[in-house]
């Protein structure tokens, strides 16, 4: 009789733990999705500002071409090429900003301020996203999660390369 009781309690505890972990994992996946959505919006905005800068007086014709191309690539890239495209845009903006520091005019400096504000936000968004991804990967590596397939059909989140070297 007691043997059955112990078995039932054990099953209940395991059941509770599984449910707890599944909720935890679900929340983590949710966090990955939302933090990526944030980052995505910010990156889109950055591409838009980059285009504006390309069409303004800040950029000389050569950088303008480079920047326009990079911005379009970043905007249209599919998920596989996204990382490379965003890195490209970061590079192009970096090149331009390096020598534009001394030739700022009042009208254009508004654009550059907007860009630097966005850059700060992108940096924060990346930090939040990478943390969510790392956490999720960690929990999903747990034996019990793999054994009971608690992650269901959710794809394993990955860190994009550009997140390490962006800006």
């Amino acid at each position: 009789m007691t043997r059955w009781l112990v078995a039932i309690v054990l099953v209940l505890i395991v059941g509770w733990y599984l449910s707890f972990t599944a909720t935890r994992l679900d929340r983590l996946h949710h966090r990955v999705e939302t933090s990526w959505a944030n980052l995505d919006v910010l990156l889109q905005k950055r591409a838009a500002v980059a285009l504006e800068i390309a069409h303004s007086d800040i950029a000389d014709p050569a950088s303008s071409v480079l920047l326009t191309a990079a911005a379009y690539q970043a905007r249209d890239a599919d998920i596989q090429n996204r990382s490379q495209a965003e890195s490209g845009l970061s590079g192009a903006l970096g090149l331009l900003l390096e020598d534009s520091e001394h030739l700022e005019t009042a009208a254009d400096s508004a654009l550059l301020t907007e860009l630097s504000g966005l850059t700060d936000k992108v940096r924060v968004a990346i930090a939040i996203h990478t943390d969510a991804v790392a956490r999720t990967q960690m929990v999903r590596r747990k034996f019990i999660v793999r054994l009971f397939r608690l992650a269901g059909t959710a794809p394993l989140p990955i860190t994009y390369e550009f997140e390490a070297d962006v800006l």
Partner: protein
Amino acid sequence: MLSRSLKIGIVCPYSWDTPGGVQNHIRDLAEFLIAAGHEVSVLAPAIDESKLPVYVVNAGKPISIPYNGAVARVLFGPVAFARVRHWISQGDFDLLHLHEPAIPSISLLACWAADGPMVGTFHAAAKRQKIIFAIGPILEPAIEKLSARIAVSEAARLTLTDHLDTDAIIIPNGIYADRYAHGHSQEKWSGNTIGFIGRFEEPRKGLSILVDALPIISRFAPDVKVFVAGPGEPEEVIKSIDPQLRPRFEFLGKISEEEKANFMSSIALYVAPNTGGESFGIILAEALAGGACVVASDIPAFDDLLGHGEYGALFESESPTELAKVVIDLLRDAEKRKQLSLRGKIHAQEFDWKNVAEKIYSVYEMSIVGSEKVRLASDTRPWNRFLNKEEKS
């Protein structure tokens, strides 16, 4: 800076009545956010309910426990947990901002109880404790519910990564830089003077280092005077001073914010000889904003805040002779002092609330997604939904 008005719940883990860095930070942040048009409710333990500002909700009487080398007035237990849950379910918040969610107090309870957009700020800096192996697994599932983590300094960030294996964004503590920027230089505090502000009775504030350094300093600068401001009984400290040097010390007691501004712009040097336990060093930020030339011990928080010596001079922590050397050198070189305080004053703008709050707010924005609100975690758990076990109080 603000796109829409938010309803923000802030949880303070420490007793609202006792003065402290975390409480000050929360008070300033809450008032800044309210002034910017947001609705803010702060949940905090308190002893005396009648003295609370309107935006603070009392969570109950705090319990004193020893924590991180000091006595912390925190609050936990089933009654507190029920109050926290009540506050969350009634608050209809867009976002919760939990302070110190890793220490055993109501922030942790709120983190446990709530679901939805949450931001956590970690203030403390401590050495790695072995006990974390035991409590880490309990804390981790709660801490990872936070959509974003903020650390107030590099030291606090390292503490977090050491203990809980998670990263944070660094946003410094805020000060109202303008309040200190326009102090008037006072005759009584000018000359070869050294200033110190803080609870000088606490050993970790390091006043004894300055006391031990004074015999050397006074040999090279015979007219040096030390002004010590802050709450506490000076008798014990005075006893430890060489009788011949006692006239060099003056204890001012607690001084007002306005006096603090005047103080900082009058003294020749501001000395912070803290020996540790400091995570940010708000007083240094205030000293810099007030245009004082700062000398501080090289503990990680101060080293970081002073840009490794760029905005103030550093000396080897707990070494009176090193402190004396740096002080004598600076007292003799007015030009060097001027350079340091000038750079420092500009740097202090970094810590001004308008910059700091903007950074915090952009983290809020990233944590809030769509119109998702904060709710009780138990409402969303499948078995509770199934059993309809709602315990709305």
